């Protein structure tokens, strides 16, 4: 290992750039292959697009706050809706999870970097330019036709509606190419994470001693490798249709009108689990530390996640109950969808078991985790309701569905992303985030979230369809929509508190020290922020909680595991 030489070069480089202007420092970030910097860039990029797509969501809510709303014209509304959905999945959810895994996996397994650092940088820049391409469509999507700017076909981009005759201009092509690029980037990261977890673990860390987060990252990475290609393949087919006159989704030439839906949801449903399993991973690291207890049912937790990963690949057509499949088809996908509830329920009981009898510390990461537990349970329960095909027929394409999946995407994933930011920010920057500002963020976001998405369930049950740009007065939807929009405003305010908190704490936050939470995994054994080489000496591990063993030599974990 050329560790010491690298170290000297790194130190020298830092000394050089101290005197350099901003450009020199920027150059360092552009050429880096360090997993921590790339991880931070993923997360910062994700948060940047979170603000943009969040503002788009607030514009949508402003338009829908009152009946006969006139804030934006219908075609702009369709673009807002498409860009909000696409960005939140591929430009926010994905980079934040790959960012955290990038940052944490090598630190948690006691390695100096991921298995393929340059591939990692390649993946990031693919994602980055893919992401820019999506928003660039606002400037260039017109093509030569004057046919409208950004994509307006929904994040699912159902063909044949996205075929050339029905979607003129280049906006749909921007959607295809942008998402294709970000998917290839995610594939590179996924290969990296699995190869690192399998080949780079420090001495003594057998597979059964890996932190739960690393296990879950491996499951997520496997899912990415299997389910991102169907979307990419379908996108290639759509491109061939649009540019070379192929007929994959061309009903005029005998093509199928629902083949795209199958291909898309083969990707689309597991994608939800790709996004939510990292939330499980954060919860499985944070809840034990703030309950001062070892995680309840480690191996069951891992097994349940693998089960979710496998089952989630056979449930896609529950997005298509209204398409008119055969009764056996409907029954199969309804049963499979309900089956996912079993391992998910196991996980919820495991977290409850971890909290049970613990010495709880209600710091910010724990507050967000507790909200996550409750909200994810509700999201799971409405998920079971929607898995019942006849019930789904009744509420399909209504705001009940919107409320359900926002309960997962916001109530579970975004809440745990916030928890993870509060938990690992001290490690990445060496400074704590402010508790008071954080409490404002938490309560505003929590109340805002429930105002918005609890009420939207009822708007959906009253028959409010999805994707409409306005509605008429006198249909019992006014109050619910107004409350939902006020909630959206509160969530926006909450996020503003996070932004202020991050900027303030970067400058003047309390110094964190190496291990501010008295935690147990390896990332807390090195300095905050960690040096470029992570660990001066490769660590040796004897149990799942190496730092507990260090701090409590009289009662180490490895005696019992």
């Amino acid at each position, binding site marked *: 290992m050329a560790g010491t030489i690298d170290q000297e070069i790194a130190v020298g480089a830092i000394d050089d750039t101290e005197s350099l202007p901003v450009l020199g420092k920027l150059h360092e970030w552009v050429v880096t292959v360090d997993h921590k910097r790339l991880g931070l860039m993923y997360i910062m990029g994700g948060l940047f697009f979170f603000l943009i797509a969040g503002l788009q969501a607030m514009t949508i809510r402003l338009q829908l706050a009152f009946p006969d709303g006139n804030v934006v014209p219908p075609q702009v509304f369709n673009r807002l809706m498409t860009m909000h959905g696409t960005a939140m999945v591929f430009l926010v959810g994905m980079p934040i999870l790959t960012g955290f895994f990038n940052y944490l996996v090598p630190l948690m397994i006691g390695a100096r970097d991921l298995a393929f650092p340059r591939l990692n940088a390649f993946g990031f820049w693919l994602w980055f330019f893919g992401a820019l391409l999506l928003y660039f469509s606002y400037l260039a999507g017109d093509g030569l036709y004057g046919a409208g700017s950004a994509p307006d076909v929904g994040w699912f981009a159902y063909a044949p509606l996205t075929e050339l005759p029905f979607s003129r201009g280049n906006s749909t092509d921007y959607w295809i190419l942008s998402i294709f690029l970000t998917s290839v980037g995610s594939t590179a990261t996924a290969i990296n994470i699995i190869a690192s977890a399998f080949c780079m673990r420090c001495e003594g860390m057998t597979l059964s001693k890996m932190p739960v987060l690393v296990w879950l990252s491996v499951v997520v990475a496997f899912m990415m490798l299997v389910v991102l*290609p169907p979307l990419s393949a379908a996108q290639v087919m759509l491109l061939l249709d649009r540019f070379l006159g192929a007929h994959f989704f061309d009903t005029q030439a*005998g093509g199928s009108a629902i083949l795209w839906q199958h291909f898309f949801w083969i990707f689309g449903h597991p994608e939800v689990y790709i996004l939510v399993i990292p939330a499980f991973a954060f919860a499985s690291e944070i809840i034990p530390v703030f309950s001062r207890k070892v995680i309840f049912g480690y191996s069951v937790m891992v097994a349940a996640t693998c089960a979710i990963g496998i089952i989630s690949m056979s449930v896609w057509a529950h997005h298509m109950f209204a398409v008119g499949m055969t009764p056996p088809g409907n029954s199969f996908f309804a049963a499979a969808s309900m089956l996912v509830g079993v391992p998910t329920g196991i996980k919820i009981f495991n977290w409850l078991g971890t909290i049970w009898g613990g010495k709880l510390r209600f710091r910010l990461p724990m507050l967000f985790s507790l909200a996550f537990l409750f909200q994810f349970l509700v999201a799971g329960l409405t998920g079971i309701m929607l898995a019942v095909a006849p019930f789904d027929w009744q509420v399909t394409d209504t705001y009940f569905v919107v409320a359900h999946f926002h309960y997962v995407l916001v109530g579970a994933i975004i809440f745990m992303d916030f928890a993870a930011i509060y938990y690992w920010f001290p490690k990445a920057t060496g400074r704590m985030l402010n508790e008071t500002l954080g409490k404002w963020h938490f309560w505003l976001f929590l109340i805002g979230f429930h105002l918005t998405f609890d009420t939207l369930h009822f708007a959906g049950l009253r028959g409010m369809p999805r994707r409409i740009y306005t509605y008429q007065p006198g249909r019992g939807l006014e109050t619910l929509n107004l409350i939902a929009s006020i909630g959206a405003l509160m969530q926006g305010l909450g996020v503003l508190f996070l932004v202020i908190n991050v900027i303030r704490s970067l400058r003047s936050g309390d110094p964190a020290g190496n291990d501010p939470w008295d935690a147990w995994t390896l990332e807390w054994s090195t300095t905050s922020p960690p040096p470029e080489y992570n660990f001066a000496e490769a660590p040796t591990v004897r149990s799942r909680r190496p730092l507990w063993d260090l701090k409590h030599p009289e009662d180490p974990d490895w005696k019992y595991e």
Partner: protein
Amino acid sequence: MAAAPSTVTTPAAKWSKALPYRGHVGILLLILTESSFFSIFVVAYVFYLGKSLSGPYPKDVLSPPILNTICLLSSSITIVLAIRSLRAGSIRTFAIWWFVTFALGLEFLTGTALEWHRLIYHEGLTISTNLFGTTYYSLVGLHALHVTIGLLLILLVLILTMCGYMNERHVERTDVLSWYWHFVDAVWIVVFLTVYVIGR
């Protein structure tokens, strides 16, 4: 690292030797994700079998490319022989087998090009003719793209070998490339069965 000298016997070295080689894990994962990508095109091909509204149909214009198939599949054997000679330290034998692999791959690609030429200019089948053309050219073309990428990489190694840069230290990396080549061959078996056996 798998290439650690065997004289080192510290526990740490033993530990890292017991872990799998990252190159092999990486290429297996790439193969996994590529298989998923191919399977969607195979599904589309099978799904649209017999759904074309107009001709030409597969049974009229396709004939199994037996020689191509033999060449491509035997290139998997020659690449194994090449790696084996490299492991044994014989760079010259390696270079010969590696060149044979390249030549066999090139023959396959040429065969595909000739078949496409015949289909386009004599049979009038293009990607926009009918569903058969759409699915045929995209599936076979996707495979040909992978053969092309593999051939470029094999050519790169060949050039480096000619320039004298090849030695035993590169065994594992070259082996990783050979795994990719085996994958391309295995996919051809699936494509061949789908297009020329089941689909005809």
